[in-house]
């Protein structure tokens, strides 16, 4: 029974992936990509990797999908012709994809049986961290440096997008993402959903210590709620020069870095946590990260300040 379910999900994955590749226009491809994100999330759930599934659904499908929908909507429309790159580029891309596929297949098929794993070791040291979710322990204790760098990458991406703005609109506000006259249904949704969404986001962040969830998932839900309010025109996008906004953006990376530096003093290593007090420190870092990730993701979707639109 579960074998049939897994085979169905695998077939669906391939089907949706081809649908994305063969889509006639960018918007169709993007919608297919969002659907692909959801199917991949289902596959992760079947693989018992709920943390990854949540992230895939929220970031891979949701936020990335939204960024690409907006990008596709801005592309100039060409009537009739297929809106894709020329034949040569397509062949090069296809060739590279096949190479990656062969390489990945070789690695996966060549794995020794049983596959090497650090899981027992990760589980053995879990009590020392005060956490119940081994994934959170990996993200914020064992491999905290990776997570720190991920957040910095997010920050760099945001700076790159902001730097696309024209000189005159630098420090200004991004254009409102919604329609000029939002419909009543959208306004209603934007009024009713955010309280529930904020609650879910806080739960995801808080529960992340012991069950699947965490800063990225909670941040993505918070960002979605903010974007919904902006889409409905209930409030205007903030100016990117706003001091409070910049502090929110920096809170996560700065708190994380500060804790890392303190690690030298209290635990003798960068990102070392004080003995016995690891959990409160981790929660403080996660709280700051959740806020920063939410603000950064929403700003990534909003794009550069207005004025950059003109070609």
């Amino acid at each position, binding site marked *: 029974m579960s074998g049939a379910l897994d085979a169905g999900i695998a077939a669906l994955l391939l089907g949706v992936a081809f649908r994305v590749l063969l889509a006639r226009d960018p918007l169709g491809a993007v919608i297919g990509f969002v659907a692909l994100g959801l199917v991949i999330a289902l596959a992760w759930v079947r693989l018992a990797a709920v943390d990854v599934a949540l992230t895939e659904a929220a970031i891979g499908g949701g936020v990335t999908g939204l960024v690409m929908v907006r990008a596709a909507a801005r592309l100039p429309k060409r009537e009739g012709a297929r809106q894709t790159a020329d034949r040569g580029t397509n062949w090069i891309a296809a060739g590279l994809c096949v190479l990656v596929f062969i390489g990945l297949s070789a690695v996966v098929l060549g794995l020794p049986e049983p596959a090497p794993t650090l899981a027992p070791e990760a589980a053995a040291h879990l009590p020392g961290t005060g956490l119940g979710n081994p994934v959170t322990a990996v993200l914020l204790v064992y491999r905290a440096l990776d997570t720190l760098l991920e957040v910095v990458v997010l920050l760099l991406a945001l700076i790159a997008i902001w730097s696309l703005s024209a000189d005159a609109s630098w420090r200004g506000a991004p254009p409102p993402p919604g329609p000029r006259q939002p*419909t*009543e*249904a*959208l306004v*209603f*949704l934007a009024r*009713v*959903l955010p309280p*529930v969404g904020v609650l879910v986001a806080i739960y995801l962040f808080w529960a992340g210590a012991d069950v699947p969830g965490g800063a990225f998932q909670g941040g993505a839900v918070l960002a979605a709620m903010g974007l919904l309010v902006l889409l409905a025109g209930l409030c205007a996008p903030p100016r990117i020069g706003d001091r409070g906004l910049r502090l929110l953006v920096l809170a996560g990376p700065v708190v994380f870095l500060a804790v890392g530096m303190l690690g030298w003093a209290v635990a003798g290593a960068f990102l070392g946590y004080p003995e016995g007090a690891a959990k409160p420190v981790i929660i403080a870092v996660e709280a700051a990260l959740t806020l920063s990730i939410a603000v950064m993701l929403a700003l990534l979707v909003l794009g550069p300040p207005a004025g950059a639109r003109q070609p």
Partner: protein
Amino acid sequence: MSLLTDLVTITCVLAGVVFFLAGTLGLLRFPDTLTRLHALTKADNVGLALIVLGLLPQAGTFLDALKMVAIWLLVQLASGAVAQLLAEVALRSAHAAEAKE
């Protein structure tokens, strides 16, 4: 007792699946956006309601049951609002096409 609850579950979930099948059929076969939306939202509303209703007797705790009802309410809210938005865009582009002709 458990036989009775199982019977309720099987009946309701099957009925819900029928609604989802009909909705999917409508989504694939109906001629335009508005009728397709109609088919889709019926599946979302009634189909999911029946499935949740059927699963309620199987819920381990009251909290689990409450969570399922909350999920149904949220899907109602989302699908209702999104259907409205899509319908409005479809209507507007239909009017625009008419004006062009």
